[in-house]
């Protein structure tokens, strides 16, 4: 992860996480997972709404892809904890350039859908080349 963080920073990106928890919950998360990024606490999901980060439909949990992902996760030894927070909130990534313009966004199609570091680095390269050009 450190290598990927360095690669993203070398490509001109500054990663900041946004979580739905309180300050106490964020600090516990940072300590538990040794998070090296700044983190925004957004318990009211104000920022999620500002950027229109999508939420899953009520029936989304029953979609075939979600069921298969759940089975795969359990097969790997993961167990299901008690749901906390907004369980329908989907992940997403938004890139904002130095002028404050949204240059890229990735909306997760399901709770486990995240862009790869390579995808993010390619997006940053494209943003940088556009700015230079």
């Amino acid at each position: 992860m450190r290598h990927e963080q360095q690669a993203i920073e070398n490509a001109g990106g500054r990663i900041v996480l946004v979580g739905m928890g309180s300050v106490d919950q964020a600090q516990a998360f940072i300590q538990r997972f040794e998070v090296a990024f700044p983190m925004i606490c957004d318990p009211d999901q104000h920022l999620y709404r500002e950027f229109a980060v999508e939420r899953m439909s009520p029936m989304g949990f029953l979609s075939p892809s979600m069921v298969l992902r759940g089975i795969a996760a359990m097969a790997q030894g993961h167990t299901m904890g008690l749901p906390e927070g907004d369980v329908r909130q989907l992940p997403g990534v938004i890139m904002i350039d130095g002028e404050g313009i949204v240059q890229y966004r990735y909306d997760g199609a399901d709770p486990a859908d995240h862009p790869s570091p390579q995808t993010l680095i390619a997006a940053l390269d494209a943003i940088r080349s556009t700015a230079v050009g």
Partner: protein
Amino acid sequence: MTSSKVKAPDVSVMLADGSRLQLSALWQNTTLVLVFLRHLG
């Protein structure tokens, strides 16, 4: 790549240390990569 090309909202945000700042402070002289999590953290 999905591009929106719209101005980002410059709202006040709270960091994990309890301090507050304008979101624009995070995109000065760099490209801000906001990663929206599903976790409470």
